[in-house]
Each structure stands twice: as C-alpha cells, then as structure tokens.
C-alpha cells in the first residue's frame, strides 16, 4: 500500500484526503513535475519517432509521431544496381533491419551484457567483504581506510583515464574484455553504499551466525548478502546503467576490434559519412540499446521501491 502511494507521486495522497479540492500548491507541484517529465521524455519521444519515420519525413519534420509509413526508395540499394521496384521499403522495417544489418547489433548487445554483468558481479564480490569489514569488524586503522574510500569517491574517472589506459596497454590488454571490465571491478561507491547498509544490520544477527558456526566469509554470503538484496538492487541500477551506457571508456580501450564494441559504440556506425546522415537507422539502434534497460527497470521497479520502503527487517 505504501509503495503504491509512493510510486504514484506522493503529493496526491494529501489531495485525496481533502476530497479532490483544488489547491494552488498541489497544482504548482504537479506543473513543475510535468514540466520536468517533459524535459526528460521529449528526447526519447523524438528518438522513438525518428526510428519509425522515413528520411524525407525526418528532414521535413512531417508525419507526426508514426510517419505515413509510405514506401520510399532505398538509394543505397539502387546504388548496388538492383531494380528500383525491388528497392522500395517501408520506413519502420527499413530503419530496424538496417540497424541490425549495417552493424552487428546483436553482437554489440551481447558484449554489453557480458561486460555489465561481469563488472557488476566482480564489484559485488569485492564490495561485500570490504563493506562487511568496514561496518562490522574492529581492526586497527578502520576509520582511516574508510576515509580513503570516501576520498576515492571524489576522483573523477576522466582524471585517471590516461594512466589507466597506459597501464592496460603495457599489459597488452587493450582490445579485450578485460580492458572493459578490470578498471571498474572495484567500486568505491559500492563499498560505501553497502557499508552504510550493513551498519543498519543488527550485530546480534552476526553474533547468532557466529554461534551457529559460520565463518566470517560464510556470514557475508549467507547472512549479509540475502539481507542486503534491496541495497544491492539499488547498487545494480547505478552500476548497470553507468556501464551499459558508457561511451567514454570503451571508446578509449577498444580501438580496432569491432567484435568487442559495446552498444553505445555501435551508434558510431551511423555517424554522418559519405552516404550522408542516416538518422532513421541510427535512432532505431538507439531505441534498441535503451530498450533492455527500460524493460529491466519496469520489472525491477516494484522490487526496488519495496526494498526502499521495507528498509531493514525488523
């Protein structure tokens, strides 16, 4: 019940209590929220719309959202010397098939899954024991180590990109999955987030596990991990979104081998070149790339909000 009211914009609950009375404050709040939503959603609207329309409609800005879907002549096909009648295509079909044909988009998507999944897996593998030690074990210099973790949060990736690249190059790791994964395997943000969550787990639970005969590592994976699922989910969203959408780092370390391209690099295939701009297939690619994230969000949203509202296990 609580997560329902939360998900459907909190202010409405007070309005409901008053029996739908008009209120300037509420209206203003909603106006601001709607405006914000428009700013965020408009680019997506344009992206989806362009992925459906023909090049002429895109250039002339006609055809509404869906476009007329009238068949047009594929110039590239004609250039290949085929019969003009065979080269008439419907915009939607043309845009999406080109997206998959011109670039090995499925391969890129697979790369994206491999890279983001391994990054997240290794991040959890490292962050959970670190966070557990920082939150629950007493050892000399703990506060200093935690201070370093906080300090690392302040370092922007771009500042250390070059040294990282040189290091990977010297190791001969550029143009490998390792180059895409290794620099992200230790997430200080993840350590920080999980540490804050573990602080709220009662010590009694850990003592009970010790009495039952669990080792410290066993406590991490069998007790802390299951209780930390909500926090892990929140971290997963940050981690997966950041690395799925990352253009900067793959662009640096993947220089030649196109079979290692991640989805955002796939967009480069459609950048303006001798053939002229090809916005339709490009936007179709973009739509395909963001689709998995949006679907994942829609599925996880319930769990995510539940996790936040549950906040613990008392």
């Amino acid at each position, binding site marked *: 019940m609580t997560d329902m009211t939360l998900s459907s914009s909190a202010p409405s609950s007070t309005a409901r209590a008053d029996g739908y009375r008009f209120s300037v404050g509420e209206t203003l709040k909603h106006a601001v929220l709607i405006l914000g939503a428009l700013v965020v959603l408009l680019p997506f609207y344009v992206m989806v719309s362009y992925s459906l329309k023909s090049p002429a409609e895109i250039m002339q800005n006609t055809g509404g959202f869906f476009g007329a879907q009238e068949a047009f002549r594929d110039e590239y096909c004609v250039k290949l010397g085929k019969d003009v009648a065979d080269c008439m295509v419907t915009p939607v079909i043309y845009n999406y098939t080109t997206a998959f044909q011109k670039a090995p988009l499925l391969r890129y998507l697979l790369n994206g899954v491999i890279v983001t999944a391994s990054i997240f897996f290794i991040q959890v593998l490292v962050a959970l024991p670190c966070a557990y030690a920082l939150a629950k074990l007493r050892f000399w210099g703990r506060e200093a180590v935690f201070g370093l973790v906080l300090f690392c949060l302040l370092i922007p990736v771009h500042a250390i990109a070059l040294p990282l690249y040189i290091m990977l190059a010297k190791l001969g790791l550029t143009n490998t999955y390792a180059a895409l994964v290794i620099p992200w395997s230790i997430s200080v943000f993840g350590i920080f987030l999980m540490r804050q969550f573990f602080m709220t787990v*009662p010590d*009694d*639970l850990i*003592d*009970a*596990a*010790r*009495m*039952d*005969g*669990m080792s410290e590592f066993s406590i991490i994976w069998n*007790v802390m991990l*299951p*209780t930390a*699922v909500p926090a892990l989910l929140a971290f997963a969203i940050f981690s997966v979104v950041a690395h799925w959408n990352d253009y900067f780092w793959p662009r640096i370390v993947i220089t030649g081998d196109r079979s290692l391209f991640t989805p955002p690099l796939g967009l480069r295939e459609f950048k303006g070149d001798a053939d002229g701009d090809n916005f339709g297939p490009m936007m179709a690619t973009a739509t395909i790339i963001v689709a998995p994230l949006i679907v994942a969000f829609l599925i996880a949203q319930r769990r995510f909000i539940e996790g936040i509202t549950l906040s613990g*296990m008392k």
Partner: protein
Amino acid sequence: MSAIHLDSIRKSFGETPVLKNIDLSIRAGEFLTLVGPSGCGKSTLLRILAGLEAPSAGSVSIGDRVVNGVRPANRNLAMVFQSYALYPHLSIEDNMMTPLRLRDLSTAGRLPWIGPLLAREKYREMRRQVEETARVLRIEPLLQRKPGQLSGGQRQRAALGRAMVRKPVAFLMDEPLSNLDAALRIHMRSELAELHRSLKTTFVYVTHDQAEALTMSDRMAVMMDGDILQLGAPDEIYNNPQDIRVAEFVGAPKINLLPGVIDSAGQARCGDVVLSRVGVGAASEKVTIGLRPEHLELAGGDEKGSLTGRLVHRENLGADLYLHLSVQDGAHRMVVRTAPHEIGRVSIGDDVRFVRKRGEAMVFGADGKRIRLSETPAAAVPEVA
C-alpha cells in the same frame, strides 16, 4: 552436562574497565541469572562466556576444558538474543536447521540442490530434530513462515527453537524477554522456567529486570560496575542483601532507606526511633537503615517506636496499596505496603503513623556494606516491635 567456570575475568574497552576480576562458577543444570542495571557488564560477561568477545585476562572453562581460544560454535553453547536475531530471509524451519547444517554436514552436504541428495539420511535426521523441537515449543504450524510474518512471542519461541535443536551444554540468554509486551513477558517467565525444568540444561540468563531474576532463577548474581556484588538464591538476595546497592536494586517498590546512627547501646536509630539492634559496632557510627515496604504497617495509635509521615501518593495495585509518605519534613520518602481495606479514610496530605511489623531492618555501614546483627541483644533494652 558440565559446569562452567569463569576465573578472574577482566575486560576493558580501551581505558574503560568493564569487568573487574570476575570469578563465577555455574553449576551444571542450574538457572543462573546475571542481573544488574544497564552498563554493569553483564552482557559483556555473557559474550565472553559465549566466545563472541575475548577477555582481557582470565580464563573460561566448560567442564574441564579451558575454552579461551575456542570458536563460539565449538563451545557447544547456544545463545538467544534480545532481538531474536533470526535470519530474515529463511523460513523458521531453515532457521532452526542452520546450526545443525553447519555442525553435522560436510561442505558437499551443505551445497544447495545437490547437498540434500548427497546426505539424504542426515537431512532426514535433522528435519526430525527440528520437528521434535518445534513440537516441544508448539511452533509446528509456523515452520514454513518467515520471521517477518511472526509476532514477537512467536519469534521468541523460534529463536529458542534454534538454540534448542543443537542440544547445547548451556543456553545463554541475553534479555530475551525485553522486546515482549508486559503480559507476554510474565507468561514467558513461567514458560522458560518450565522449559528449564524439562530440559535440565544449564541456563545463563542476563536481564536488567530484577523481577525476572527473582522469579526464574536458581541462583542470581547481582552485578554493578563490573563486579559481582552478591551471588545467591533469590530468597537470600532479597532478604539478606550484603550491600546497599543490592538492597536498592532488588525489590519493587524499592527498599526504604533512612539515615541513622548507632547509639551507645548498640542500636541503630533514626532520630528518636530505635529501628534495629546491631552487633558490636562502633557507637555513633553513621549508618543507613533499610526497611522493605512490606515490613512496615500502619500504627493504630501512638505506639512506641512509630514514625510519622505525610501521605503524598497512593498507589493502588488491587491486592496491595502502596502509600508514599514523606518523613522527616520531606527529607525522605518512604513506601509502606498495606491492604486497601486497612487504610480507611486517609487522604493525601494527612499524617500517617507506621511501625516496623516484622523482619529485620537491614543496617548498612558508611561503606555500603551490611553490618551483621548480633545473635543476642547487646543491651537490656528490648528491640522495638
């Protein structure tokens, strides 16, 4: 079953000493309560016994074995925590099974999916033990539920169950009833005592509630400031406290304390009123005289040795009525127990006379230690009342 010995245990956190040289022998099969105000070190002592905390000095032995370096799980003790500490993601059955899995199964047997196939016989045995324990505690219908779906009392039982399945040498309980509501707490007291009688295992029970200690234990140790002040049966502790802090801590409402002196006849007196006979003590020594509320009663007339107080509050508990009196012009408060029918028409602000009815007045010296009373009167003056 084996006895547990704690020898000269010390513990300090940084500069702060928490336990100062504790010696404690726990007999096999007894219900021993560590009781004291919060911060007295009782929980730390229990955690040292459990192995969750290492003592700064001293040794812990279970039976004949010194267990200082032994991991908590290998001491074969079970602990029940105040917050129950059930694994929130596991059903009650799995919660209760966890200690057994960790103790009885090999690494391969603990694997998910494959484990139950490899060690089918052991799993059957473990399940049988869990069911048996659940039957004793009457939580069989709850076995498939998660802790979050249970009420406080049910979680309490489940936590007890998890402790019981492994048939430990001793149960360590750290304020297990504190999170329950008042009625359930009183009910659980008798259940725990019954459980102790039927299991015949050692119980070491930590609480700040002196009523729990008095009602359940075979022996109780009153702790304060890192020391055990007195160890003994509840009766002994209540009727014969050796230290003024013990006398104050045990008993509700609190014992009445009046300042007094010992006169030349060896009697402790408060003002003009002789309250007790004392043994060979130095005369005119300043003492504190303790009188339990039930050892006082209202005086009919102007009896010899009676005290007067002004009624400031009446506390009616149904069977008993506690009168809060301000004596010696408001310098002290005293509580007198009477029955509602005895009091008649006394209202707040009236003066009330009361006398010592029976039982010994307890006399404590300036250092807070009890002053022994002599067997025979030191002087010819008969003791009052």
